[in-house]
């Protein structure tokens, strides 16, 4: 079926190839710049801040900055997958609280770290899978479904803890939160690992590519034989699992499971992703963008506190910087399109 009338094919390529080649070449450099513009811009920002803001560029501060985005960073990795598949998850804040509380309770009852971590992770995975089933199989709108789980899981966190913080005294468990390796706290290492794993997952695995496909065009994905429902459930399950891990780490950092922790967390995570160029319409995600989105959020907060910006003006600044970040991005892609 493959042979083609040679004359025609040849002049076809003779005519088209040069223009194509050329534009591909140009495209690549441009493309790279465009792809990496967020990281580059952040790098620039970082350098500027290092020179202008006292105490910014110091090991303690950078480590502190990274610690401050550890939870957001972890969950942003899976939220990226979730948004890439054209879904949405509001329940992550509650899941953080619940898994932390649950882990703390199990730990205090049994003194078994395995049971505590296992229990917390299992709960997260179940919540995630529940979201997935609701959304993929029962076709409930993702916003409403995860809003419902957000409420229910928060309720559960309050109920199991009777609304009280659950103390943790197990030293081994606590050391997860403040121990260090190569000078970096474990939570920072974990979030770094998450970015690595999910970067590879997104770009180099069938799982990641199929995720983008179902977000980019669910019908096309289904027609190509991808099991869309199953994949969506896996994505949510993973999200629940990683979120639970973040919750357990948080619990170990603050040496207690707090049922009202991480309120509004979902919005922070989603914003970091969107800031990093993940599209709410699905089908578009870049791990470096998400990393930068997370770092911008953390850096802004860090710098404002270093500069002692008044709490009320912090709101203004944060809004302003969010806008500036996307407007810059906007200008850049506009410029590229023009050229």
């Amino acid at each position, binding site marked *: 079926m493959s042979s083609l009338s040679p004359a025609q094919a040849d002049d076809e390529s003779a005519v088209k190839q040069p223009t194509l080649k050329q534009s591909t070449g140009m495209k690549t450099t441009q493309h790279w710049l465009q792809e990496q513009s967020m990281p580059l811009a952040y790098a620039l920002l970082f350098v500027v801040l290092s020179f202008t803001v006292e105490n910014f560029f110091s090991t303690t501060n950078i480590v502190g900055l990274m610690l401050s985005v550890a939870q957001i960073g972890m969950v942003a990795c899976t939220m990226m997958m979730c948004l890439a598949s054209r879904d949405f998850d509001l329940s992550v804040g509650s899941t953080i609280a619940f898994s932390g509380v649950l882990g703390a309770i199990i730990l205090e009852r049994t003194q078994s770290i395995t049971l505590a971590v296992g229990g917390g992770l299992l709960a997260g995975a179940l919540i995630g899978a529940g979201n997935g089933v609701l959304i993929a199989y029962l076709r409930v709108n993702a916003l409403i479904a995860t809003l419902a789980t957000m409420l229910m899981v928060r309720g559960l966190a309050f109920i199991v803890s009777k609304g009280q913080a659950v103390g943790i005294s197990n030293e081994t468990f606590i050391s997860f939160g403040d121990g260090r390796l190569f000078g970096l706290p474990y939570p920072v290492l974990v979030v770094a690992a998450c970015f690595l794993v999910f970067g590879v997952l997104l770009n*180099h695995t069938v799982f990641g590519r199929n995720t983008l496909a179902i977000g980019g065009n669910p019908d096309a994905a289904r027609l*190509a034989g991808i099991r869309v429902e199953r994949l969506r459930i896996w994505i949510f399950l993973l999200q629940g699992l990683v979120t639970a891990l973040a919750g357990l780490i948080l619990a170990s950092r603050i040496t207690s499971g707090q049922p009202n922790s991480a309120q509004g967390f979902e919005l922070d995570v989603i914003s970091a992703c969107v800031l990093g160029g993940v599209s709410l319409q699905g089908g578009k995600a870049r791990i470096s963008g998400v990393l930068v989105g997370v770092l911008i959020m953390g850096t802004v907060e860090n710098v404002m506190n270093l500069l002692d910006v008044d709490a009320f003006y912090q709101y203004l600044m944060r809004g302003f910087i969010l806008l500036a970040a996307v407007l810059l991005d906007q200008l850049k892609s506009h410029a590229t399109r023009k050229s």
Partner: protein
Amino acid sequence: MSSSQVPSLQFEEVCKFFPGVKALNGVSFEAHAGTVHGLLGENGAGKSTLLKILGGQYKPDGGRLLLNGNVCHFTSAGDAIAAGIAVIHQELQYVPELTVAENLLLGRLPQKLGFVNRNEARRMVSQRLQQMGVDLNPDARLCDLSIAQRQMAEICKALLQDAQVIAFDEPTSSLSYRESEILFRLIRDLRAAGRTIIYISHRLEELYALCDACTIFRDGRKIVTHPVMADVPRDVLINDMVGRELSDIYDYRPRAIQSERLVVRQLKGDALPTGQDFSVRGGEVLGFFGLVGAGRSELMRLLYGVDKRGGGSSVVLDGTAVSNDGPAAAIEAGIVLCPEDRKEQGILAQASVAENINISCRRHGLLGGLFLRHKREAELADRFIQRLKIKTPNREQEIRLLSGGNQQKVILARWLAEPGMKVLILDEPTRGIDVGAKNEIYRIIHEVAERGCCVIVVSSELPEVLGICDRIIVMREGQISGQLERAQANETAVLGLALPDMQTT
């Protein structure tokens, strides 16, 4: 193809019902290996529905499907693929942000332990593309390609499956001459390789050129199967399809052509860097022909103001300059454009047929400049539903539930309904439309011209351009390469201007 041979594909009494529509009502036919079997029928006859059943997308409400004599029950598209069936759907189904290679191998990317082998994927795809003689960059993202290239990619996706049964649903509707030629060659190769091919098209020339046998549908029923395509006269085919005689579908009548009304000078923009000049006379039907990517659509978009016109461009209608302020301004000046891509630029998928018809012209009938006149809108919608024979249970049906051709008719109706129109631009107006309706659309085009309006028809169907236009402008690589009056225009002359390689000879 002896009758003792088991047909490779059989439909038996297949039914599919939608609310208010019997899309398929007991259809039986069979197709044999090593043949191309054409499917014809009016818009909404049920052809695509049949292919969706074949592709595992729909479950039939009755009847069954046999492959090589074995009954198949598909519960998903994956099942059909596994059974050796590939379907190229009428509505393109690609993932915009993924590359050509990823799209072509969607669902079966080469992998090891879940990790995609990108080099392998690229290699597989570029090798096959080269074999097929298709010029596509495996690393380009689909959203960066032209529609024709996307359509080609879609076709290649199915061919890459190496399926036994391959079904094409109007594959050439977005292709122009050159690519269609490539496709036909590929299809003939497939036939030679013993595959079973189902081919749906509204272009009769194509069907005659390709098909061995054909089956004709009307209103969800099979009318007849002609085992030997070549033996069927054209009139019989058309009569079977639309249920009436149609001698000359172009219906061209010479008419008085007035002086120049629309004068375009140095029209350029980001997509078309060199300025182009042309003009249209009142009462004239002007055709634009060219190969894919020749820039006809781009030119029209600039004219209509969808894309910003570059400095020095001038568009003058009846002596008044048309402002460069978007389509709204163009419409106010009397220029309307029916876009080429109905899915992306035309339909409001969730809205009703009536809504889709009324959207652009309702501003003429508002109460107090704000309030709608529902009754008037309903009447307008019904009028066009009848006139263009739009197959829909009622005017409130969501347009996305109509067949492809019927959606196209709705979009056309939107523009034909515009009362203040002076210039009517139609970009690929009859894409996916059945012959009967084509005829009706040509008649409307002539009617509009007879009223003294300028009509511009961009089309990749050469017979259509030759059949209905008073004058033809040909474009090549972003520039106008020449124009021909109706009297001088013929296939060789037009192609001579359109094909780049013939330029030197």
